[in-house]
């Protein structure tokens, strides 16, 4: 009886932690679904967009969304940078353009309770090439020289649409 109980408990633990059964069975919604179904803070998004514009960031083709986090006063800043609608990083050729962009986004929205920044980059056909995210804290520390570039890069996560990135713009 005890052995059977242990086996059941072990199976449950493995099922929940390794195979993520609650998620697969639809008992728990994925984190992204939970976040997108929250009501966004549209006023904050307008303010952030105005703040980043005042900070000298090009906002043509930029959509800004502020998603509140559950059980917290913190928000996540999501931006879509659409080249087909006029977005450009501005400083073409600079290898630090992405880092600089993240720094500008984080600095401009620092007063808006944003604790994470993410952006999706769309090419001239409006197709997604990559989505990049980092915690605001790490971005600001890097901008002040408090952490190295290696530490900063390790704090960044991304989803790359590899085939799209490779073929984007090709005839």
């Amino acid at each position, binding site marked *: 009886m005890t052995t059977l109980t242990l086996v059941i408990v072990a199976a449950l633990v493995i099922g929940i932690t390794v195979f993520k059964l609650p998620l697969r069975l639809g008992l728990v919604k994925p984190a992204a*679904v939970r976040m997108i179904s929250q009501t966004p803070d549209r006023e904050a998004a307008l303010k952030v967009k105005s703040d980043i514009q005042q900070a000298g960031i090009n906002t043509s083709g930029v959509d800004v969304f502020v998603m509140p986090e559950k059980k917290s006063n913190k928000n996540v800043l999501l931006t879509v940078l659409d080249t087909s609608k006029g977005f*450009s990083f501005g400083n073409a*050729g600079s290898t630090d353009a992405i880092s600089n962009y993240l720094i500008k986004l984080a600095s401009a929205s620092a007063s808006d309770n944003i604790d994470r920044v993410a952006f999706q980059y769309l090419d001239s056909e409006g197709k997604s090439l990559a989505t990049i995210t980092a915690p605001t804290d790490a971005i600001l520390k890097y901008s002040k020289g408090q952490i190295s570039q290696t530490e900063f*890069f390790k704090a960044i*996560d991304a989803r790359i649409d590899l085939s799209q*990135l490779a073929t984007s*713009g090709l005839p």
Partner: protein
Amino acid sequence: MKTKTKIISLVLVLLMLVPVVTGCSEAGRDILTSFIQDWVKTKFGIDLSDNSTWGKAKAGWGLMKLFTEDSTGNPDSDAALGTVKMLKNFKDAEQDMAVGRSSNNATAEDLAIALRPSDWSYRVSRSTLALKQNDVVKGQTEWKKGEDLAYSDQNPVGYQRFYSQSINELEAWKNTGQLDKANWEQQAFAYGTLVSDYVERYKLTKDPKDKQMALYYNEQWTYVTKEGKPPELDFGD
């Protein structure tokens, strides 16, 4: 066998992609590619600039492992990355709701709600519209659903935003002069809702102006409903 074939094909595709990725030529894409090269090298030790056969194979394998994983290992990153991908649906819903709000179009608002049923701000607008169109029951139902959703978000700033939106929409209607011409049932619900909105927002803000407005609308409600004496309000002081 099927999985094996899939993996081999993926490796081959990636092997072909690596040199393309490292040699593309559009300004924004170049910046992105350059950043990705630095990032995967620093974070995962994958060197995309190594053009030897072994180097390409290693990079291809590394990329395949990296980009076929469901999770980054950081739940906050996963949520942010996954959410951005779903913004298309969100933008469609926003467009429908904008049409609904600007032209008092219930069908457009219902379409938006169908796309984003958990968005309390849509429910507030639908409630206001129903009320304007003399469907008081629908107005009440949508407002209640909205309030429940706002509380289920468990974000205190959200509760305040909910009451503020309800106040703004009802007062905007009142300012057109249409509310005063509406029937008593519409007026009673609008003023009753404004009382409740201001009382609840006062509990969060402790702003004396909110208390003052709650008392003002309480008198309006009493006048419309001919209740005689305004009911006592619980400000939680």
